[in-house]
């Protein structure tokens, strides 16, 4: 890459998913993150019970994210060829885990009664 600016990255992502889907995904991410922050501020505390469920869901999110990426790219664990590949797998797993945790926590806060 000659110059990797924010603009280039956005252009690349728009082409990757299609402009509509990309911005829809961004919107979903922003909305879920916004709702998460909203419930944190509303409740003025992290609920340990909800957090426990969120934590338990993290490995599921991690594995799901890695398997998803492998599926759409016709590859598998045998293709891990060097340290950077391990870093990429861990990165994808971490993103999946955090995303899942935030989603689960937020969903519980919004939809479960307030005994948590």
């Amino acid at each position, binding site marked *: 890459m000659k110059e990797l600016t*924010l603009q280039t990255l956005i*252009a690349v992502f728009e082409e990757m998913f299609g402009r509509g889907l990309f911005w829809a995904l961004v919107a979903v991410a922003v909305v879920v993150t916004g709702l998460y922050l909203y419930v944190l*501020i509303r409740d003025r505390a*992290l609920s340990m019970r909800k957090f426990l469920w969120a934590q338990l869901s993290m490995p599921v999110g991690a594995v799901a994210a890695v398997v998803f990426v492998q599926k759409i790219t016709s*590859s*598998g664990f045998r*293709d891990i060829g060097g340290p*950077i590949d391990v870093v990429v797998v861990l990165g994808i797993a971490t993103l999946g885990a955090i995303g899942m945790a935030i989603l689960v926590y937020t969903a519980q806060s919004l939809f479960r009664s307030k005994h948590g």
Partner: protein
Amino acid sequence: MLTYEDIRPSRRGLLGLAAAGLAAATLTAPARAAKVATKARIVIIGAGAAGTAMANRLIDRLDGAEITLVDARAEHLYQPGLSLVAAGLKPASYTLSKTTDWLPSGVRLVSEKAAAIDPVAKSVTTEGGTRLDYDFLIVAPGLVLDHGAIPGFSLDMVGSNGIGALYAGPEYAAKTWDAARKFTEEGGVAVMTRPTTEMKCAGAPLKHAFLVEDIASRGVGAGKYEVHYAAPQGALFGVPIVAEKVRMLFGQRGIKTHMNHKLLSIEPGQKRATFEKTEIDSVTKTEVKSTVEIPYDYLHVIPPQRAPDVVRQSGLSWADKWTDQGWVECDQKTLRHLRYPEIFALGDVAGVPKGKTAASVKWQVPVVEDHLIAAIEGREGVETYDGYTSCPLITRVGRAMLVEFDYNNNLVPSFPGVIAPLEELWISWLMKEVALKATYNAMLRGKA
């Protein structure tokens, strides 16, 4: 039980964070120079990767210029995807779009083939007889595949009789997979070839060999197939350090190499390919040529490649280099024609060493843009092209080496210390599989 009472995000903190994010986004948006006002007539021959990217960039930079694209083809091909189609990893449609999908408004498309260029009178004439006068001409028509140069071979054989030819386009790449798949399921002998001429993406013949071998190893299984790689060159790749790496990988994978073997003809009935083998006699030190026949169950043909006739007949080609191929005579660093300064060459047709790839185009286009706009403004351009080319050299379904190099055969990795160029990595495969077409499309729109 521990509670997180002390973590108390506030509304004010949240707003501050949002404001900071907005400020960062504003700062990183690049400042755009004011458009240059001009009445210049710019003709671009070819609406492929180079011509389209150039048109989009010029529209963004110029105000009032008359930009005309000349190309008869209604379909735009994403050529880097052909190797994936020919390995059954993507459908033919993956590489297809419409030429007009990528063109900005304000550009005139003449859907005809350019028939003649008169560099003295500064005009281009189309097959329909339309005459287009220009102040600046960008020659980017791509190249011609000379399938007729191989006796015994014709395109209608592709897909049956164990014959593949993935360069010939999306439909032929898909048919190539029909023939290659049969080999990966039933085994036998696969023979991969390469032409003597310069060619598009010199890594593609290697990718096809690697992919077919990998799929056969998972399909019919070890011991039931052989892959042979025959090329007229003395080395497996133009960049010595990469050639050595490929030699080692071929060794590990059991792919047999036949260097200095030029495909002369094929006999599809007998499934036999005839090669001319060149050796140096150890006593007289002269070249000795002999004929070698290799039987095949699957044969991949890459024909000789040349500049289109319109370029070769217009007197724009090198007189003393590539005389059988006719690439445009131009400066290596600026791609400007050496005898006609208002003409630039871009992409496959440019007479420069290496670089008949979309990655080269991505780096060439901003250079030509700079010199063209400088010429309009009456100053000298400053950007230079160093021969950058990139090849995500696929070695297996799921792995590739991200090889990037320049005119001097230096490796120029984009991510030094992070993505090793000569290692077979999953991340490099991910880039080819996921990010490359997106980057290509962004380039077409002049955005990358």
